[in-house]
């Protein structure tokens, strides 16, 4: 089975570990992810100003590409891409006036009416593959991992595009359980990691990230699972800085959920590209015997 796949900018460089682990895992599960041709940046954030239609164009153009290539759904991994594409899609489906303006602005493209379904990989795993099948395919149950599921903002808000209702985290809970790991529920699963404020106000973003890391640690987690490259940056790679600023007292290994899937499916560690994670994750995996030294 093939599925159209939109990677987005970050997955082609700084978050190659999110992408490579996903492609390899999906192949193992019998799904071929076919990259949308001629895709462009989604714009990262949905424009919230009512009259600002120009910033919807980048996302809509990607959806047009999928339609042009004969697809009816597009798979995303990055939470921000998911959110931007899904919201632009809703706008094109539901707002006749704005749809008309955007379609006539992009007169070189075919008209678009919001007909593509934008799907996040977690929904795809549940609906198209199923947790039972994943459980059967697991070669290395992650029984020593106590994983805190982290969604951040863009997988759940606004509710119109949420991968599941606000405040419910069953997709990741079922995913973690299917991999043989234990779930550590904690109150900060949908807290904001500080997002792009890491460039606007680093101190405020650091405090937001530290709150989440401290809560996960206090709840007893030894791993944090994320789906967004910006969350991974603020909650993973930034841990060294947060430690030196004494905002956190201990590191907590942070992984993309696709990396956890790849380990559990028994894939070669090279597909996980751990060199792109925060440094301590490799030692951690070795200590739990999930990586040979």
């Amino acid at each position, binding site marked *: 089975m093939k599925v159209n796949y939109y990677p987005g900018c970050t997955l082609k460089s700084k978050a190659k570990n999110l992408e490579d682990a996903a492609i390899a895992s999906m192949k193992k599960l019998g799904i071929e992810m076919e990259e949308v041709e001629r895709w462009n940046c989604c714009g990262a954030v949905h424009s*919230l*100003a009512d009259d600002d239609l120009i910033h919807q164009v980048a996302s809509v153009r990607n959806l047009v590409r999928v339609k042009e290539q004969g697809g009816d759904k597009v798979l995303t991994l990055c939470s*921000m891409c998911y959110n931007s594409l899904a919201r632009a899609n809703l706008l094109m489906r539901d707002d006749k006036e704005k749809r008309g303006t955007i379609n006539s602005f992009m007169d070189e493209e075919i008209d678009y009416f919001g007909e593509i379904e934008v799907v996040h990989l977690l929904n795809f795993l549940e609906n198209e593959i199923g947790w039972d099948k994943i459980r059967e395919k697991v070669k290395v149950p992650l029984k020593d991992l106590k994983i805190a599921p982290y969604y951040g903002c863009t997988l759940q808000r606004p509710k119109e595009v949420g991968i599941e209702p606000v405040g419910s985290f069953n997709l990741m809970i079922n995913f973690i359980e299917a991999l043989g790991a234990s779930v550590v529920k904690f109150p900060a699963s*949908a807290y904001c990691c500080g997002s*792009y404020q890491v460039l606007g106000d680093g101190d405020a973003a650091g*405090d*937001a990230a530290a709150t989440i890391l401290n809560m996960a640690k206090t709840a007893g987690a030894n791993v944090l699972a994320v789906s967004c490259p910006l969350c991974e940056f603020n909650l993973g790679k930034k841990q060294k800085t947060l430690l030196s600023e004494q905002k956190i007292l201990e590191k907590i290994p942070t992984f993309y959920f696709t990396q956890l899937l790849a380990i559990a499916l028994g894939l070669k560690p090279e597909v996980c590209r751990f060199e792109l994670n925060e440094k301590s994750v490799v030692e951690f995996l070795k200590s739990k015997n999930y990586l040979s030294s």
Partner: protein
Amino acid sequence: MPVKISSETTTKDFVQKIEELSGQNVHLCFQCGTCSGSCPMLEHMDFSPRKVMHIIQLELEKGLDNINTCWICASCHTCSARCPRGIDIARVMEALRQVILRKNKNYIEPSKLSEEAVKECPQIAMVAAFRKLTS
């Protein structure tokens, strides 16, 4: 600091401008403070989101001069998800940013970002920050 209400501090049609940009009715706000209680950035804000909503209702545009609230907002939409009056406060914050950005003023200068930040930050951080904080 108290903000005086006078013809010098209020801007006629400020509410209308914010409502047009945000598509939200700011007068629905009854000042319960759920937004402020939910905001992950509150402690770094000069004024809480609740107070900013009140200032907008009173058309006190001057009262928001040099107030960092909309610039610290990370558009996480927690306030919007929780507002009992159904106001999408993240859109109101965007409108406040747009009023200033459309005067060609930037909150951050891309050229002044440290080399380290540019090298390390994921692309989505930069694209998002430039979209939200520069004109």
